[in-house]
C-alpha cells in the first residue's frame, strides 16, 4: 500500500522550505511595501534612500563586511593551502585546530577576546572600529577556512605537476593554476562571511561599538513596532546579497559551478 519513492525523502525539506523560507520572505516583502495601515506604499523604500543616516549605515556595514571578508580571505588562504597541500600526514587533525573555536559559543569567545583586547589597548571604546573588525575576523575565520580547504583538497595534483613540468615557478603555479582552480571555494567562503559580517550586531554590542549596522537598524525598527521600515531594510539587504552573489559567480568565470 505504501510505496516508497526516493522523491519522498525531499518532502520534509520542502515543508521546511515553504514554512520557514518562502512564507517569511513573502511576509517581509508584504510589510516592506505597505504602510502602517496596510496600504501599498513605496515610502519606506524612498525614506531609506533619502536619509544620509540610513545610507550611512549601509555604507558603514558594507565597509565592515568588505574589510572583514578581505582579511579573512588573506589569512585563511595560506592556512588552507598549507593544510591541504602540505606534507602533513594528519592534515585533518590540523584543520581541527583551526575549526575548533566553532564548537564554542561565539559570545563566549568574544567575551574572552574582549578581555585580551582590554589588556592590550586599555580602553576599548577608543578603537571601536578596529575591535569590531578583529572580533568579527576571529569569529568568521573558520567559515572561510573550511570551504577553501575543501576545494583545495579536491584540486587535482596532476595539474600542479603538469605546470611544473612545463617550467612554471612556484609563484606562477600558485597564481595561474591553484588560485583559479580554487575560485569556487573562495566564493563560497566569501558568501559565508560577507552577509553575517553585515548584520551581526551582537559583536558590535559586545565590543561597545554603539554605531548601528544593518542588523541593529532592523532590530531597532522592530522593537519600536515599525515592521514596515524594518522589513524594507531586510528586503534591501536580501537584494544586495543576491546581486553580490550573482556578480561574484559571474566573475568566477562562465559556466563554472560551485563545487564545495
Amino acid at each position, binding site marked *: 500500500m505504501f510505496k516508497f519513492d526516493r522523491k519522498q525523502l525531499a518532502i520534509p525539506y520542502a515543508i521546511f522550505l515553504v514554512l520557514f523560507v518562502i512564507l517569511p520572505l513573502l511576509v517581509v516583502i508584504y510589510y516592506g511595501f505597505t504602510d502602517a495601515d496596510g496600504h501599498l506604499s513605496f515610502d519606506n523604500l524612498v525614506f531609506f534612500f533619502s536619509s544620509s*543616516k540610513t545610507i550611512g549605515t549601509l*555604507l558603514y556595514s558594507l565597509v565592515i563586511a568588505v574589510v572583514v571578508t578581505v582579511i579573512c580571505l588573506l589569512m585563511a588562504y595560506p592556512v588552507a593551502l598549507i593544510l591541504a597541500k602540505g606534507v602533513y600526514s594528519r592534515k585533518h587533525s590540523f584543520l581541527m585546530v583551526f575549526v575548533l573555536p566553532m564548537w564554542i559559543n561565539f559570545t563566549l569567545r568574544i567575551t574572552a577576546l574582549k578581555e585580551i583586547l582590554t589588556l592590550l589597548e586599555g580602553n576599548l*571604546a577608543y578603537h571601536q572600529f578596529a575591535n569590531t573588525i578583529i572580533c568579527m575576523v576571529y569569529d568568521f575565520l573558520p567559515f572561510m577556512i573550511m570551504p577553501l580547504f575543501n576545494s583545495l583538497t579536491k584540486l587535482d595534483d596532476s595539474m600542479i605537476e603538469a605546470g611544473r613540468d612545463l617550467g612554471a615557478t612556484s609563484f606562477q603555479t600558485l597564481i595561474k593554476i591553484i588560485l583559479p582552480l580554487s575560485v569556487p571555494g573562495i566564493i563560497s567562503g566569501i558568501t559565508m562571511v560577507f552577509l553575517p559580517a553585515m548584520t551581526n550586531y551582537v559583536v558590535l554590542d559586545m565590543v561597545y561599538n554603539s*554605531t*548601528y549596522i544593518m542588523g541593529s537598524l532592523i532590530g531597532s525598527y522592530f522593537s*519600536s*513596532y515599525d515592521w514596515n521600515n524594518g522589513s524594507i531594510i531586510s528586503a534591501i539587504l536580501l537584494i544586495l546579497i543576491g546581486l553580490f552573489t550573482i556578480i561574484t559567480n559571474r566573475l568566477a568565470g562562465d559556466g563554472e559551478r560551485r563545487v564545495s
Partner: protein
Amino acid sequence: MKNRILLIAMLITMLFSLTACGEEQADADTIVLRVSNWEEYIDLGDWDEEEVIDIDDDNNIFGENSMVEDYEEWFYDTYGKKVKVEYSTFGTNEELYNQLTIGDSYDLVCPSEYMIMKMMREDMLVPFSSDFYNQDIKTNYYAKGVSPYIKNVYDELAIEGQSISKYAAGYMWGTLGLVYNPLEVSDEEASHWDLMLNKKFDKRITVKDSVRDAFFAAITYGSYDEITSSEFISSDDYKARLTEVLNRTDVDTVNYVEDILTQIKNNVYSFETDSGKADMVTGKVVANEQWSGDAVYTMDQADEDDVTLCYSVPTEGSNLWFDGWVMLKDGIANDADKQLAAESFINFVSMPENAVRNMYYIGYTSVIAGGDSDLIFNYMDWNYGVDPEEEEYVEYNVSYFYGGEDGDEDYTIYTSPDQTKRQLYAQYPPKDVVNRSVVMACFDDESNSRINRMWTNVRCFDLKSLLD
C-alpha cells in the same frame, strides 16, 4: 498520489503532536493562570541556609520554594481550588507588547507604567473587581499593604480621564540615576546629568541602550537652566511643571535632544544593555546610568569584590518609574475564576513577608509598605540600620513612603553615613528625591515615531560626517 498526501498528513500530525507533548494535561477543574513578568523579577526560592532573614524571633523569612509554588499552595488552602501558574518572562516592555500583538496570550503581566497606559489606551485590560481595594477583606493584601504614597501616584496618573489604579496594581518602583565609583567621580560631579558629557570621563561612562532612558537623561540635562531656576523650584505647581517640561516631545525639543544625545554618544564608552553592571565592578567604566534596583544589585556585587560604588539621583530631576500588574482582556476573557486567581496572585505577592522575599532576592523596591504590619519597615532597618550607640550614624527618614507625617520619628532609622548615597538611598529614596522625580508618560504614536526616528539618527553612521 494518495500515498504522498498520506505522508504529508502524517508529517503534519507529527509536527503538531510534538508541540502538544510539551503541555501538561491539567485537570478540568484546575484554573490555569498565565503570568508574564520581567526576567529575574520574582523570588525563585532555593535559598542557602545562611540566607534566612531573621528580622525578629517570630519572623524568620526564608525562600524555600519559589514564590509561584507557594502561591499555588496558598490559593488551594484559601479558596479550595487548584490553580496552575504558567510563568514566563520578557526582557523589555516592547518585547512583551510585541508578543501580545502576534497572538501570545497571558492573563496577568507586569509592564512599566507607560506600557500600562498604552495598553489602557488600546483597551487591552480588565479593570479590577469592585472589592479589590476593599481593605476590610482579609485577603486583600495589596489594598491593605500598598504604600500610601505609591497609591496616590497611581490614583493621579491617568490616561484619557481614567486613573491607572483602576487597572493596575504596583509591584516594584524606583528612580533613574547614576551609579558611580567615588574614587574616580566626585559626589558633586555625579549629582548632575552633565556627567555624561564631562570630558574628564571621556569614554569611561555608559548610558542605557533604551530610547526612553537615554531621552529622559538628555532632556533633563537640556532643561537644566529652566528647571533649576529659583522661580521654577519655588512655584506652587513645581511637580506639575516639572512633569510637563520633562515630557515634552515637540519637534524642536526632539531635535535638541538629538544634538545632546549625539554629543553623549561621542563621549561615552557605549550605550549598553546589560554589560554596564559588570563593567562598573571591573572598573572599565566609572559611572553608569541605571535604574535604582539594578543599582542596588550592582553595588551589592561590587561589595563582594571589595569595590565601593555609590548611587546618585541628579539634583535637577529624574524619572520615577513603576512596574505594575495588569490583567489582559484577551486572557481573562470574562472567566471569573481566572480573574480571582489573577487578583489573588497580586495579593499574594503583596503580603509583607512575600514582598520582603522578592526584595531580598531581586534588589528592587516593592511598592508594599506593609499597612498594619511593621515588617517592611523592620526589614529596611534590619538591612541598613546601625546601632547608634556603637557606630557612627545619621538619621534617615522615609515617612512619606509609609504614610506618616513629614519627619515622623516612627519612620526614621539610624544608618551609616555612606548608606545615604548607597543601597538605602537607591532602595528607599528620601523625600526630596521623589519630589524632583517625575513619571515619563506614554507618548502618542506621532511623538513616539518622532522619538524613535531621532534615536535611529543618533545611532546611525552619518554620511554627512564624512564631508566635514
